[in-house]
């Protein structure tokens, strides 16, 4: 099915659980803060159990219309375009008349293999990657200021970083692809950063911008490591030689000690280290100027958590800060094996199918959203 009707469906028969969540979500939207810049110029997409974006090309006149649609329809997933359009509901896309777009970065637990339940390890890992994206790319390289960035949790495992800056608002797909490629180090070439001049071998200086500088700084730092240093040259056994090389790299001369096979050695280190220097984002999301992305502070229907706006990434703890249904308890019947979990300081499980439990609301909503329990 590719046809995507713009209007919401007549709600088909809902299960008790769907009805329960619908009420919860709806009451949340009646009170919560709505956090969308220029909603009137965005395309919205709503999703349900079947598809995260079931209906798109939705236009709202203003924030209050958006709120009333959220209260009455209480979709499981709410997305909006990163783009601003003159006619957000027009179809096909070209008729929307694209005006500009936020630049977005999507970070997710890639290669996440720990099943459908949330895992602390993955969450920490992605948080670290978001931190790296901001501190090592967006601020120093791209020169965005902190107040041009807004970060939100995806509601599941990942994070979204939105950049609202005049400098990038007009960039087309191909320009955004360049930005994404830069962050992921795609197309990075050793030969472009290093060159021979006579007998000398030059490369980036530690103070340089771009990947060259990143590599030079990381390399100089790693010379402290014996194994690393010796794998480049036996000569580096001597601390003085290490110091000598280090000082030389600062100025862009990568070999003043006579490293045997220096080009191959350095190229090999470069190939290994570029992976750790590069950011891990979904490049397709960044390049897509008409991407629909989860609305900040909306509910993620697969967890019942908020896609919460994050002020301080370091202080943010998803399993504590993102759950929103924090009042009351609910008895549920477990329908599939659930591992031990902790949500908002409440530890529960593991559960076997058939068990029943009375849980704090956030935990019960989480299991219902995961379709791992029914109401009891």
């Amino acid at each position: 099915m590719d046809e995507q009707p713009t209007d919401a469906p007549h709600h088909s028969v809902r299960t008790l659980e769907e009805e329960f969540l619908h009420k919860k979500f709806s009451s949340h939207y009646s009170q919560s803060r709505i956090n969308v810049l220029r909603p009137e110029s965005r395309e919205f997409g709503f999703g349900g159990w079947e598809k995260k974006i079931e209906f798109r090309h939705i236009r709202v006149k203003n924030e209050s219309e958006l709120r009333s649609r959220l209260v009455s329809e209480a979709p499981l997933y709410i997305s909006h375009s990163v783009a601003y359009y003159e006619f957000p509901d027009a179809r096909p896309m070209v008729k929307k008349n694209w005006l500009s777009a936020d630049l977005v970065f999507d970070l997710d637990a890639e290669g996440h293999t720990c099943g459908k339940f949330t895992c602390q390890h993955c969450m920490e890992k992605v948080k670290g990657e978001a931190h790296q994206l901001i501190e090592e790319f967006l601020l120093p390289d791209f020169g965005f200021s902190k107040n041009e960035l807004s970060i939100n949790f995806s509601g599941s495992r990942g994070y979204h970083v939105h950049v609202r800056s005049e400098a990038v608002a007009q960039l087309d797909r191909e320009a955004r692809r360049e930005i994404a490629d830069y962050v992921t180090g795609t197309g990075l070439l050793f030969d472009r950063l290093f060159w021979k001049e006579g007998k000398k071998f030059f490369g980036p200086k530690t103070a340089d911008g771009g990947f060259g500088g990143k590599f030079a700084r990381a390399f100089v730092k790693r010379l402290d490591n014996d194994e690393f240093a010796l794998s480049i040259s036996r000569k580096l056994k001597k601390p003085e030689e290490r110091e000598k090389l280090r000082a030389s790299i600062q100025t862009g001369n990568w070999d003043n000690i006579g490293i045997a096979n220096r080009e191959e050695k350095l190229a090999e280190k470069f190939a290994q280290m570029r992976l750790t220097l590069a950011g891990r984002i979904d490049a397709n999301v960044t390049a897509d100027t008409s991407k629909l992305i989860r609305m900040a502070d909306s509910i993620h229907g697969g967890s019942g958590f908020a896609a919460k706006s994050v002020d301080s990434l370091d202080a943010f703890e998803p399993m504590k800060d993102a759950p929103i249904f924090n009042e009351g308890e609910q008895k549920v019947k477990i329908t599939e094996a659930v591992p031990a979990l902790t949500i908002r300081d409440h530890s529960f499980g593991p559960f076997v199918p058939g068990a029943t439990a009375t849980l704090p609301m956030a935990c019960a909503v989480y299991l219902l959203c995961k379709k791992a329990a029914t109401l009891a």
Partner: protein
Amino acid sequence: MASADLIFCSRYPFTKQAKDYVSESGLELTSTLVEKAEARVNNALVTGKVKRVAELPDAREEELAIYAGARMIVSSANNRYIISRYAVAEAKRAGEYLAGDDAANNGHVELVASEFGVRFEKKGKDYLVPLSAYLPFTPRSMDYKLTNRELENGFVLVSRHERIRMMEEAVKKKIEGSLPIRAQFSEDITEAGKRMLALIPKLEVATVSVGQENYPPCIKKMLEDLALSINLPHTARVALGIYLVSAGVTTDKIVDYFRHAPDFSEKTTRYQVEHLRSHKYNMPSCSTMDSYGVCIADCRCGTPLRYRDAINGARLRRLAAEKKE
């Protein structure tokens, strides 16, 4: 107006200064000048270059009038291929002047850059340029790949030569974007415009009109764009390739379609088409095509591959309905 300014204007006739000069001085487009304007466009189309004339004081004002005339001729021809080829040639001409002026260090280069709202800041032998100007004004090629560039605090380091190359690109975009002018033109202009249309190589026209009646609108449009040397984004090229492969078009034929792409390379294209063929990629759905920005109609067929069935189906249903009545 000082004559130093006239030098600037005649070299860079696309600037605001030049436009102001023309409107203040009320230059007239005599029939000799129209002829020269036609020669300028003709040269651009045939050789890819606009000749630089000897910069005699008298010739400078003329040069401005000729430029204005050339724009009218191009507009009257109103053809995408002509516009883009003409813009490239004018940009090259500007690039040559910029390179000379850069060496002479007379402030012209900064003035042209300011036309595009760009400031280059000198750093040693090189220049710093804001990313917001770097990305739109550099060609998408390995040489300008951002990944291998020094990027710091929103600025990219470019060489002196690259700075001129960027401005050339900016000139091209500006001229391309400003054409066609919509106006009524005199007869000698429209006649010249017709002669320019006749110059479009036969080949270009032929490729557009191969029997593609059954191709969906998006595919037709992409083939047309390719034939007119209009750049298609990567995603669009892949989708087009998959479509043509699934539609049973031979690799040779597909490579031919891509032959006029601005960055065509026979070897790469052949390799890529063969790659698509052997990996049996799925055709993107219409909504995916739409998100690539290449869907231009609402055919209700789900995927461009089913377009033929969809229109045939509609026709059959119509026939059936007519029969019943």
